[in-house]
């Protein structure tokens, strides 16, 4: 049973499902427009005087890029897993000869083209008004970092979702993760503006690699060498998240088998 052979069909059917839920998707996207709020606040502040390396133009570029990166790399798997584990409907996935994480990943990825299409106006505005990098290599690193950010997000959501095997519900853990993400990923404030040691901690944690890092690459705040080093760290985090997700899911399924679903 080769999951990669089945993958194109999984993506196609997932895309049809995303189209069926298009209204829900648009509403969901509207709830993730926080960077626009940050944009208006920070550009107002920067009009008085630049904040660090950020003038109004940099802030526009940063937060428009943050909006797009969040949209095309986000994962909402935790809600689905939490519900399926609690209600026992996960059984249907466990009866299939392909690992459920393959199927979840295809469903998740299949919705991205629609999200990307809805982001298109923001991309156009960013390209026209913001100062994005013109380096081909940095752009290539940026696109690779989008994949890395999606991998970290997807597998982190799989880990938190799998906690529903062990806890009454994993959504409270997700809320905790979300707050930490907002503070430490650069979603609300660029990490560069954090005071010394907080910045050091935030830059070492994986949250930055799901948002702040790709954004910093695309708006040209990084040289190629630093960007490449960041990419290596990002993919290491992605590999760690994937390994942990597979192990936690496996342990969870064993528990599901012992206690029933």
């Amino acid at each position, binding site marked *: 049973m080769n999951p990669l052979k089945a993958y194109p069909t999984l993506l196609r*059917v997932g895309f049809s499902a995303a189209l069926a839920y298009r209204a829900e998707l648009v509403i969901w996207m509207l709830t993730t427009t926080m960077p626009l709020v940050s944009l208006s606040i920070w550009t107002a502040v920067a009009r008085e005087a630049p904040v660090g390396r950020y003038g109004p133009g940099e802030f526009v570029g940063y937060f428009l890029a943050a909006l797009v990166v969040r949209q095309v790399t986000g994962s909402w798997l935790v809600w689905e897993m939490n519900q399926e584990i609690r209600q026992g409907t996960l059984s249907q996935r*466990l009866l299939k000869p392909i690992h459920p994480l393959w199927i979840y990943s295809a469903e998740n990825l299949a919705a991205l083209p629609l999200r990307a299409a809805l982001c298109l106006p923001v991309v156009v505005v960013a390209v026209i008004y913001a100062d994005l990098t013109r380096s081909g290599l940095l752009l290539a690193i940026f696109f690779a970092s989008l994949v890395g950010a999606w991998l970290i997000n997807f597998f982190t959501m799989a880990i938190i979702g799998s906690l529903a095997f062990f806890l009454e519900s994993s959504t409270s853990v997700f809320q905790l993760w979300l707050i930490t993400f907002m503070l430490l990923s650069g979603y609300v404030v660029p990490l560069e503006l954090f005071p010394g040691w907080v910045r050091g901690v935030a830059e070492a944690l994986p949250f930055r690699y799901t948002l702040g890092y790709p954004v910093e690459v695309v708006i040209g705040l990084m040289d190629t060498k630093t960007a490449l080093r960041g990419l290596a760290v990002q993919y290491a985090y992605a590999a760690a998240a994937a390994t942990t997700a597979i192990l936690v899911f496996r342990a969870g399924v064993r528990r599901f088998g012992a206690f*029933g679903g």
Partner: protein
Amino acid sequence: MEAAVAVRALTKVYRVHERPAGLAAALRSVFRRTYKEVRAVEDLSFTIEPGERVGFLGPNGAGKTTTLKILSGLLHPTSGEVKVSGHVPRQREASFLRAITLVMGQKQQLLWDLPPAETFDLNRAIYSVPDRTFAETLRELETLLDIGALAKKPTRQLSLGERMKCELAAALLHRPGILFLDEPTIGLDVSMQLVVRDFIRKYNEKHGATILLTSHYMDDVASLCPRVIVIDRGKLRYDGDLATLVKTIRPDKRIVLVFPAPPDRAALERVGTVVELEGTRAVLRVPQSEVREAVGHLVASADASDLTIEDPPLEEVMRDLFARPAEEPSEATK
């Protein structure tokens, strides 16, 4: 030939969190949880040969669904041995998952907002069914189940019966040799029950598939399964052919009479026990050994316009079986 399903000394014990109602109990349970053990299945053994159609009966909470979930690899046994098609289900090998299907009347696999055709295609890819085999199987299933245009309507717009027909098709596209059917006719009207029942029989006859079926509708079991396995509180109560079970538990027959005018109850009671008398229709219960004599008497003395002899309804047989103490042998157990 290797058995399709072999279960030996299967036991499944759940640890269930318990707390009484009320705020105080809720707060107490935050700090100190109490658990109790529920023995869902206990020392259960049976074997099913390839191609058999077996009814799996028992009251609610008897352990039927737990057993089916263990057989399909979703639950792990606490102890005992289980083999299905030569595989240990809990290992959930891909070749095992390809060999079986589990249809649960109350849980669906069809994608809710998409037409069933999309689920069919998804399963084709997931089970790596070659295109030609897929087309043939789909054509066959669509004909047997009379699916027609249903496959192209969004699942949420289908009736319960239409959905179950598509569920069955989706579950069988990979041509599994072993079917675990958990209440496949639940909630369906009588005509749709007949369609599903007829389909299961035809599928079994055509492909030699092994079928283990649970159903609350005794007619499903009576018409489909020559053999039944009965469990109660997780323990085996009976394993054998249905006719013997009926004869053992209820050694009587029902004589159904229709009269041109309402009959005299006292006259009927002289022949047997009147279990039903409504207008011109009467049902008598008579010991098996006295049926011939009773019928002779009725033909000679009463002016019935119609007379039929039936077995007692399976529901009554089950009720009587479960009313007996568990230790009492119900004979015929294999």
